[in-house]
C-alpha cells in the first residue's frame, strides 16, 4: 500500500510537467503578451506626445521603442530564449518557491495568490459543510422513501438545481433578491463602509454578502452528492447482508444505520479529496457574477490581461491541488474500506 502511494506521488511529477509545459507553450505563442503590450502602450504615448508638440511625423510608422529596448524587454520576460529553455528556467524558479512577478501589477505572484486564497477558502468551506450536512441526510431519506411522493418531489427539485448552472442561478438570485426586493447586496464580499461597522455589523454585513454566492455554489454540487448517497444506500439495501439482518429480526432503522449506511458512505469518501481543489480555486464564473475577489476571478482577469506569470502560478497551485486531491481520495477509500487494496 505504501509503495502504491509513493508511486502515485512520484507520478505527480510527469503530469505536472506535462500540464505546465502545454500551458506555457500556449501562452508563448499567443500574441498580445507583455512585450507587445508594452510596445503598444509606448506607441500610444508616442502618438499623443507627437500631437501635443504638433510634431513632425517623420517616424510615425516606426517603433517608438528602439530595437535595443525591445530586446531588453524580451530578455526581462524571458522571451529571448527558446521555449524549452525559458520553460525550464521558469520551472527551476518555481521549485525554489518563486512564482515570478505579475507583468501587470509588478507584485509577486505568490503574494497575489496568497491574498485571494482566504476568500475562496471561505466560500469553499461554507459550501462544503452545507453540502455534506444536507446531502447525506437527504440521500438517506430519498433511498428509504424510494418511489414515494417525497422522493419524486425532491428529485424534481434536485434535478432542477442540477440543470441550471450555478452562475446562471447566481444571476437570477441577484436579479430577484438584490435588484427587485433589495434584500441582499449586489455582489462583492463586504460593503464599502465595512471598516466603520461594529463587530456585529461586520458579521451581519459579511453574512448578507455570503448567502447568495453560497446558494449558487451549492446548487450544482448538491445533486451529484445527494444522488450518489441515495444510489449507494439503495445498492446496499438490496445486498444480501442487509436482507439477512432484516430477516433475522433487526428493525429496519437499525439495519440502515448499523449496517447499510457505513458501507454506503464509501462512494461519498471517494469524492472527498477532490474538494480541496474546489475549495481553494472556487468557480470563476460564480466569482465573476458576484464580483468576489477570489482565486477564480484572479485567474480569469489574469488571462484577459495576458498576465501570464499569474496564469501559470494559479495553474501550478490548482493542478497540484487537484492531483493531491485525487490521491487523498484514494487514501480515504483505503482507510475506511478494508476490502480495497491498492497494489
Amino acid at each position, binding site marked *: 500500500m505504501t509503495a502504491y502511494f509513493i508511486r502515485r506521488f512520484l507520478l505527480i511529477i510527469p503530469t505536472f510537467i506535462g500540464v505546465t509545459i502545454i500551458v506555457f507553450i500556449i501562452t508563448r505563442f499567443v500574441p498580445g503578451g507583455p512585450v507587445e503590450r508594452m510596445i503598444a502602450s509606448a506607441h500610444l504615448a508616442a502618438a499623443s506626445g507627437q500631437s501635443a508638440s504638433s510634431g513632425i511625423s517623420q517616424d510615425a510608422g516606426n517603433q517608438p521603442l528602439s530595437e535595443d529596448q525591445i530586446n531588453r524587454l524580451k530578455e526581462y520576460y524571458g522571451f529571448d530564449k527558446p521555449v524549452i529553455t525559458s520553460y525550464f528556467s521558469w520551472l527551476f524558479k518555481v521549485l525554489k518557491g518563486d512564482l515570478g512577478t505579475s507583468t501587470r501589477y509588478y507584485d509577486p505572484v505568490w503574494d497575489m495568490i496568497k491574498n485571494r486564497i482566504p476568500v475562496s477558502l471561505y466560500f469553499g468551506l461554507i459550501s462544503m459543510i452545507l453540502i455534506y450536512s444536507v446531502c447525506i441526510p437527504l440521500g438517506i431519506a430519498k433511498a428509504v422513501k424510494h418511489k414515494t411522493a417525497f422522493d419524486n418531489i425532491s428529485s424534481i427539485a434536485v434535478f432542477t438545481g442540477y440543470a441550471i448552472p450555478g452562475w446562471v442561478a447566481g444571476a437570477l438570485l441577484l436579479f430577484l433578491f438584490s435588484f427587485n426586493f433589495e434584500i441582499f447586496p449586489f455582489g462583492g464580499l463586504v460593503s464599502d463602509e465595512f471598516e466603520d461597522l461594529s463587530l456585529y455589523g461586520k458579521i451581519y454585513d459579511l453574512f448578507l454578502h455570503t448567502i447568495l454566492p453560497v446558494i449558487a455554489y451549492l446548487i450544482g454540487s448538491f445533486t451529484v452528492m445527494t444522488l450518489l448517497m441515495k444510489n449507494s444506500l439503495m445498492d446496499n439495501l438490496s445486498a444480501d447482508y442487509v436482507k439477512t439482518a432484516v430477516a433475522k429480526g433487526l428493525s429496519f432503522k437499525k439495519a440502515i444505520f448499523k449496517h447499510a449506511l457505513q458501507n454506503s458512505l464509501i462512494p461519498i469518501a471517494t469524492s472527498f479529496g477532490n474538494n480541496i481543489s474546489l475549495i481553494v480555486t472556487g468557480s470563476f464564473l460564480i466569482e465573476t*457574477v458576484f464580483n468576489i475577489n477570489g482565486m477564480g476571478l484572479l485567474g480569469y482577469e489574469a488571462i484577459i490581461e495576458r498576465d501570464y506569470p499569474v496564469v501559470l502560478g494559479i495553474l501550478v497551485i490548482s493542478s497540484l491541488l487537484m492531483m493531491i486531491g485525487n490521491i487523498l481520495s484514494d487514501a480515504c477509500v483505503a482507510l475506511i474500506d478494508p476490502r480495497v487494496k491498492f497494489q
Partner: protein
Amino acid sequence: MNALTIKKIKKFQSIKRGYYSFIFFAGLCLLSLFAETLVNSRALMVCHKGEYYFPTYGKMISGKTFGLDYEYETNYKELKKIFSEKKQGDYVLMPPVPYNAYENDLKKNSYPPFPPSYKSKHYLGTDNMGRDILARLLYGFRTAIFFALILLAINYTIGISIGSIMGYFGKKFDLFFQRIIEIWSNIPFLYVIIIISSVILPNFFILLFIMALFGWIGITWTIRTMTYKEKEKEYVLAAKAAGASDYRIIFKHIIPNTIAVIVTFAPFSISSGIVALTSLDYLGFGLPAPTPSWGELLAQGSANMSAWWILSSVIASMAFVLIAVSFIGEAAREAFDPKMHSIYE
C-alpha cells in the same frame, strides 16, 4: 431491435416525467429547424398581381419586384402596410413574429430596450439594441442545441474508440493514454478556450473543435472501465474462440454492450455542451458579436436589470430546456439500469 431494447424503451416511456420531457425537447428541436417560418422578417407568402411569392427560403427578393422604388431586399412589414392601404387584392402573410434576430427595430424619441408588447409583436420585448428577444432566443437555441449535439457526436466517437481500445488491449497502450488523459484533464480547459478565442475570432466550427479537444476525456474513462469489465466475460471468449478479429470483437460485441452507459450519459453531455457554449458567450469569448446566443442575452440582462424582460426570458428558457434535458437523463438512467432495488415494507 431486440426484445431487451424494446423493453428498455417501454420502461423509458413509462417514466412519465422523462418521456414528456423527451417529447417536449424533440419538438423544440424540430421547431427550431423551421424557425425561419415562425420568426422571420421575410414574409411567408406574398400575393402580388396574381403571382405568389414564398420569400422565406431562397434568394432575397428585391423591392422592385413588388413595385417599390428600391433594389435591396423588400421590407415585408412596410409592404404589408402599403398593400393594405392600396386594397388591390394583394396581400402579405407574415410569420407570427415578423422580426429576424439581427434587425434593430428602433422607435423615434425613445431608446431600446423596449418592454414586451403585443401591439408591436415583440412578445418578449427587445434587447439593448432593439432586436427582438424571442427571435434571438429561438435562433440562439438552435445554434446551442446543434452545437451540443455535434459536440456530443464528436466526443463520443473519439471517446468510445479510444476508451474501448484502451480497455481491450490494456498494457502499454492503456498506460500511455492514461498519462495523456491525466495531463489533458488537468489543463483548465475553459482557460485555454478563453486564451485561444481572445486571439482568433472563433466561429461555430473553431469553437466546436476546441471544445472537442477537451471534451472526449470523460466518456473515454467510462468506456475504458466498461470495456475492462466486458472483455472478461464469456461471450468475448466465445467470440475469440470462434476466430473473431479484435476489430470485430470491439465493435460488434463489446461496444453494443456498453450502449446502456452511453445512452445514460448522453443527455448530461448535451446539457453541459449547451452550458459551456452559453458560459463562453456570457464572458464574451464565444460566437462573434451579432450572432444570437443565450450567453450574450444573459450578459445583457445582468448588466441591465431594470430591463427585467431580458434576464427573465433567457433564464426561463434556459431553465426549461436544461431541466427537460436532465429529466430525460434521469429517465434514461432508470430505464437502462438493470439493477433491481429492494424496498422494505
